[in-house]
């Protein structure tokens, strides 16, 4: 035998329903409640903005440091008869320090020979952002982003 079961609201449930309905009718504090609803979105937007520009600023400074590092490394010094790699590393680190300042995380500056005639300067860091929402290669990164830039340049001839 088929049929339907009818459910009846208990007295307590009806009480909750009317209380909620009367609350909805009240206009006091409406703006505050709506503001709380959109506050999350606002915070997301602010975080998005801060994170995005922080990434771009870091990338720009690392790129500049890598360029300066490799430019100094390839310069041949006729007095010493060689290339000043430690000086080039110092140059890159000086740029990072002056542009970003003291950082909590370690920024790795590496200048290595690339073949016999080239030097490669890589600047890399694991950066933890204030709002870890995005990374340069897509949306949705929730952990530290590795930001890295490198340049390879031909050495000056002796």
């Amino acid at each position, binding site marked *: 035998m088929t049929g339907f079961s009818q459910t009846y609201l208990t007295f307590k449930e009806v009480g909750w329903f009317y209380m909620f309905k009367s609350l909805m009718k009240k206009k006091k504090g409406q703006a505050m409640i709506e503001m709380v609803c*959109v506050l999350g*979105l606002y915070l997301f937007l602010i975080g998005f903005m801060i994170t*995005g520009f922080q990434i771009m600023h870091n990338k720009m400074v690392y790129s500049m440091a890598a360029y300066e590092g490799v430019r100094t490394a390839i310069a041949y010094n006729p007095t010493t008869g060689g290339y000043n790699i430690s000086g080039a590393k110092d140059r890159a680190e000086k740029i990072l320090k002056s542009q970003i300042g003291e950082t909590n995380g370690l920024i790795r500056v590496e200048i290595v020979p690339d073949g016999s005639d080239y030097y490669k300067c890589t600047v890399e860091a694991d950066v933890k952002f204030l709002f870890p929402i995005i990374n340069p290669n897509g949306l949705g990164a929730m952990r530290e982003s590795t930001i890295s830039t490198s340049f390879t340049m031909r050495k000056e001839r002796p």
Partner: protein
Amino acid sequence: MVKNIKNKFQKLYKFRKKGSILIVTLFYVLMALAFLGFSYDIARIMYLKSYTRNLASVIALSIVNECGHVYQDSVNGARVVIVHDVESRPLKDYKSPYYADKRYVREIFNRNKSGMDKTYHVDPDKDILLNPYYTGSGNVIPGSINKRRFEIGSDGINGEVEVHITAKVDLFFLPGRQATIHESAIAQPSATLTRHYEIIREEQRIFFEYINW
């Protein structure tokens, strides 16, 4: 008819009055999101412009270091020419296997590829120009090459290399669209040491033109 529409609008307005702050705020949030997306792409383009400029400088300096040839000009003293093809190759002492051409540009570009963004696209054969000619309005003529500048640059003595890069960048907030970036850099070496004494080719000799008033 007009009254009817007016009544309907008033009813709708009354109905919508609740939560109007929420709707207006959501509208502003959407607007802000669009503006922020736009500005994030602008920031990326700014970064990639500075990267492209550095890359152009890296290519120009690498060409000078690889293909630059110092010798003693009988008129001007020590000077440098950028060897750009087999014909411009000096008679002796030029040991590099490369010339300042597409092949060497591709070599440098591939060595720098690991440091590039995934959203950054350059075809080294088409998008990188060396010493191009300009139109009257100052635009670069694609595919053109002014070979004389490899021999005598803007200082009138040493050769120079001007590198132009045109890159395409994928936009995050307008999927499927790309922004075009154009940057250039010039490298001109100067010779202070006289290492090589050789008779230069006739076409590499500098001829000064004087106007008799």
